[in-house]
C-alpha cells in the first residue's frame, strides 16, 4: 500500500476511535450505587475524631478557628483593659450592672 493510502487509512480509522471515545457507555445508577455499597461494606470504620478535631470541623477548619481565637482574645483585652483607659469617672457613674449575681470577680481571686 502506498504511503498516502496508509495515512488516509490511519486518519479514517482514527475517526472510528474518536467516535468510540466520544460515546462512552454511561454507568447506570444501579451500578454506581452497587459500587458505593460495596465500598461501604469493605471500608474500615474511620477512627473517631478527637474533640478538638470535631470542634475544628464544626467551626470550619483552622482558618475560621484562628479568627475565632483572635476575636476572643480581643474581647478579653477590651473587657479588661478598655474601661480604665477610655471610660472616665464621669462615664463610669452611668454604668449599671444589671446582673451582679452573674459576675465573677477575677480580681477577688488574687
Amino acid at each position, binding site marked *: 500500500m502506498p504511503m498516502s493510502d496508509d495515512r488516509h487509512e490511519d486518519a479514517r480509522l482514527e*475517526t472510528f476511535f474518536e467516535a468510540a471515545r466520544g460515546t462512552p457507555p454511561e454507568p447506570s445508577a444501579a451500578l454506581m450505587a452497587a459500587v458505593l455499597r460495596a465500598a461501604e461494606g469493605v471500608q474500615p470504620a474511620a477512627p473517631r475524631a478527637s474533640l478538638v478535631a470535631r470542634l475544628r470541623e464544626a467551626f470550619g477548619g483552622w482558618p475560621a478557628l484562628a479568627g475565632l481565637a483572635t476575636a476572643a482574645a480581643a474581647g478579653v483585652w477590651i473587657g479588661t483593659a478598655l474601661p480604665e483607659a477610655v471610660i472616665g469617672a464621669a462615664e463610669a457613674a452611668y454604668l449599671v450592672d444589671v446582673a451582679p449575681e452573674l459576675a465573677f470577680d477575677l480580681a477577688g481571686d488574687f
Partner: protein
Amino acid sequence: MAMPFDDPDTTPDEALLAAFAAGDRTAARVLTMRLTPRVLAHAYRLLGNRAEAEEVAQEAMLRLWRQAPDWRAGEAKVTTWLYRVTANLCIDRRRRARGGSVPLDAVPEPPDPQPGVAERMQMRTRAEALQAALNDLPERQRQAVVLRHIEGLANPEIAGIMGASVEAVESLTTRGRRALAAALGTRKEELGYADER
C-alpha cells in the same frame, strides 16, 4: 471526619485510595465517580455487551476496595491495576460459556443532545461498527488496540498491563489496526464515507 486532601478532584487516585483505606467516605465517593465509568467503558470494549460489562465493572471495583488496605504505594498506578483486573475478568468471562448472567438493571441509553443530532448519530453508528469489528479481533489484539487507541495509553504502560514486551504490544496493535481497517472498509457507505475518495 477531616479530609486529608484539599481538592478531591485533583487528588491522585493513589492518595484517595489511601484515604479510603483510612476510612474516608468522601474518598470512596470520589473514586467511584472517577473510576467506575472508565472501568465500565474498558469492560464494554473488551466484551461488547453492556450488561456483562456492568457486572465486570462492579467486580473490578469491589476488588479495588478490598485491595486498598494492602496497596503498595508507588508500585503501579491505580488505573493500570484496574485495567489489568478488568481485562482478566473479561477474559475469564469470554472463556466461560455465555449465558446465565443477570443484568443489574436496564441500561439507559446515553441522552441525545439537541445540537448536532445527525453528527451524534453518525458517531454512534461508527462507534457501534468499531465495536462489532473489535469483537471479531483475537483477544490480545483487541485489548492492545483498545488500550492504545481508545484509552490512549502509551505502549510501555500497555505492556505493563498485558504482561508483554513493548515490541509485542506494537505488533499486536499493528495487526489489530490492519484487521479493523479491513473490516470497516467494507462498510464505507453506511458509515458516511460515500463521498470520500
